[in-house]
């Protein structure tokens, strides 16, 4: 991948450059975060002309490596004010990889009020006025159909939905998947950044692109085989996720007393059977029709954790029906009907809002009296108002922190203004440390781990006790940043976390593609360096350790059934990033 494309929406000029030397070895999150730290003014307004939006595939995207089709998007977040990397599946990343595009950047903003479609193909980049029919409330599903008809059935598409046009802090960037459904770079409001630059869509057509060059094809094939086996032999990636999706966690977290419910006032519900992964599986199987228990969100996905959830007549309601969405609406907001939750999920996808942020905001709005507890139909109608940007729609689409302020609440589950997802930090303290200190605001995906660190940090963890939690959170965040930078699907972690051979095979594939000689230590160091870059940006944007804290109510409201509070001190929390200071002292 040797092309680095800059698209200036102020002048409508496009520059196709060679990849700057310093970015040559970077992909995914490592590239987006380094770029944002290098070029985005940390104190800029996220929706102003000085923010820049970068799209980058992973190091292995476009090759035949399994599960290498994630696309990373980076910018300063309008939700958190921090640096942000959000990633998604779909076919976009692989097309960029095949076309040799290391990244493209959208910068500036037009003086006029028109929306544009950026088209990237082997001949270059064009900027067209967006068709009127995809603007002003047109849903993402319909917009994908219209754009696919205009530009070709097989093109990749990234969209700012109606929420992005309204520049709401919960707006996501929606990506077309191989069947024309939607995958989302969900968190942090990057759809609002895209909308602020008046870019309605980016269309990518890889027709005529050659295969990705591999420096050592034989070594690549051998490593790819080992990597595939590591994924398919693991009970999580090879069996659990494919059958039950990520919603397998509903029953597990509920049993552990860590399933936040009724706006984080308890950690266990009684209606878990209604919304569990096991019920999801049984319902899809029983209804048949369009329903698919297992489905891959991009070509080359071998874990297939996604699914198509059908209605009672067998017609698909939504795809990619994830644990965090089901948790947020089903437990935190108390909606007991999985079908209604599915319709709300579809509406959120169609509008282009982050389904985690919106679900947490809905539960907070219920506590604030804006919506009745557990009323799915009322929530569906309220979420529809985001599309038309009514005052209620704008409040919900602005995220949990805004809803909390509008309603005058103290129980507002956010860190750095990003809604806390589906794992209560009081009975699962290690995850609480990650929420508190993540460079992205409260983020459950910041804490995955790679082989070698697990037994060292995880052997003696008691979820209710402090011991070992700092080391756990630190190792998890470094590991996540490292593997995010390869651009692999998050869930390959399950296969490589318990299998050192799987992790080495991932590194061997990168080495074989680029003809380099990375070691596991190099990749770990890459993870540390990404976190340091992200912390540096946040610090320059005005964030301090005082922002690395959970909301105060966790300190004095015990969470049933274990009835524990959050008791990590500020000094203990700050230990997670002690490695920054250690290196500074040694340098």
């Amino acid at each position, binding site marked *: 991948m040797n092309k680095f494309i800059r698209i200036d929406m102020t002048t409508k000029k496009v520059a196709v450059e060679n990849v700057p030397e310093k970015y040559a070895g970077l992909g995914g999150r490592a590239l987006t975060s380094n770029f944002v730290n290098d070029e985005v003014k940390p104190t800029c307004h996220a929706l102003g002309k000085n923010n820049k939006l970068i799209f980058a595939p992973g190091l292995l995207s476009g090759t035949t490596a399994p599960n290498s089709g994630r696309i990373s998007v980076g910018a300063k977040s309008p939700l958190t004010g921090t640096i942000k990397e959000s990633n998604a599946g779909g076919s976009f990343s692989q097309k960029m990889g095949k076309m040799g595009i290391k990244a493209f950047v959208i910068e500036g903003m037009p003086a006029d009020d028109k929306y544009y479609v950026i088209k990237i193909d082997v001949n270059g980049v064009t900027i067209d006025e967006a068709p009127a029919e995809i603007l002003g409330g047109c849903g993402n599903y319909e917009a994908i159909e219209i754009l696919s008809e205009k530009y070709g059935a097989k093109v990749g598409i990234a969209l700012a939905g109606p929420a992005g046009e309204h520049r709401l802090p919960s707006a996501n960037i929606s990506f077309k998947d191989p069947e024309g459904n939607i995958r989302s770079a969900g968190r942090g409001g990057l759809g609002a950044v895209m909308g602020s630059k008046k870019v309605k869509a980016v269309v990518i057509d890889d027709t005529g692109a050659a295969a990705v060059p591999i420096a050592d094809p034989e070594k690549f094939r051998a490593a790819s085989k080992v990597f595939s086996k590591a994924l398919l032999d693991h009970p*999580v990636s090879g069996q659990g996720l494919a059958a039950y999706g990520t919603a397998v966690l509903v029953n597990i977290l509920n049993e552990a007393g860590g399933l936040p419910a009724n706006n984080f006032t308890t950690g266990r519900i009684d209606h878990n059977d209604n919304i569990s992964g096991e019920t999801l599986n049984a319902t899809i199987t029983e209804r048949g029709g369009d329903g698919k228990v297992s489905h891959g969100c991009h070509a080359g996905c071998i874990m297939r954790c996604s699914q198509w959830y059908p209605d009672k007549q067998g017609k698909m309601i939504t795809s990619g029906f994830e644990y965090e969405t089901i948790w947020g609406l089903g437990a935190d907001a108390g909606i007991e009907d999985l079908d209604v939750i599915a319709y709300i999920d579809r509406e959120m996808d169609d509008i282009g809002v982050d389904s985690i942020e919106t679900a947490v905001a809905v539960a907070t709005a219920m506590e604030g009296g804006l919506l009745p507890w557990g009323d799915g139909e009322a929530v569906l109608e309220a979420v529809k108002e985001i599309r038309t940007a009514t005052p209620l729609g704008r409040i919900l689409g602005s995220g949990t922190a805004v809803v909390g302020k509008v309603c005058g609440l103290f129980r507002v589950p956010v860190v750095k203004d990003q809604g806390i997802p589906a794992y209560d930090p009081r009975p699962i303290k290690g995850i609480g440390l990650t929420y508190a200190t993540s460079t992205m605001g409260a983020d459950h995906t910041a804490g995955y781990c790679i082989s070698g660190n697990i037994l060292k940090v995880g052997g003696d963890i008691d979820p209710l006790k402090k011991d070992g939690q700092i080391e756990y959170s630190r190792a998890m965040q470094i590991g996540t940043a490292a593997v995010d930078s390869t651009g692999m699907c998050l869930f390959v972690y399950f296969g490589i976390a318990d299998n050192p051979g799987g992790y080495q095979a991932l590194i061997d594939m990168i080495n074989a593609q680029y003809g380099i000689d990375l070691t596991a230590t190099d990749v770990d160091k890459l993870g540390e360096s990404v976190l340091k870059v992200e912390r540096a940006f946040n610090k320059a944007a005005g964030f301090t350790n005082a922002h690395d804290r959970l909301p105060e109510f966790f300190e004095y409201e015990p969470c049933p059934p274990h009835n524990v509070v959050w008791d990590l001190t500020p000094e203990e929390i700050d230990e997670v990033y002690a490695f920054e200071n250690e290196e500074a002292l040694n340098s």
Partner: protein
Amino acid sequence: MEEENKKTIEVRGFLHLDAAFRKKNGSIPIIMELEEPITGVALAEKLEVSLDEIEVIFVNGFVEALDYLIHPGDRVAFLPPGCPGPYRIALGFYGKNQGNEANFKIKKKE
């Protein structure tokens, strides 16, 4: 132990054990009579659950090893291999599952 005077336990199964328990017992949770404490292994045998289908058990909301002693009044759940990685660590599986040969294996592939 949740309640001293109870002579029953509540049992759940997750992943494929959810459907298996429902098929066998009609609904979940299974309410079982229990006079004396029993290990997770012995309870699994009573319920005809093969040990290679269990990574850990939950007892009263805490992750425990298979040899943990279950008392009347307890709430128990059997968890097959398949819980995603970071949560296995955060919930404490790694201190409880290291002696368990069923860890990290797909039964059908063994």
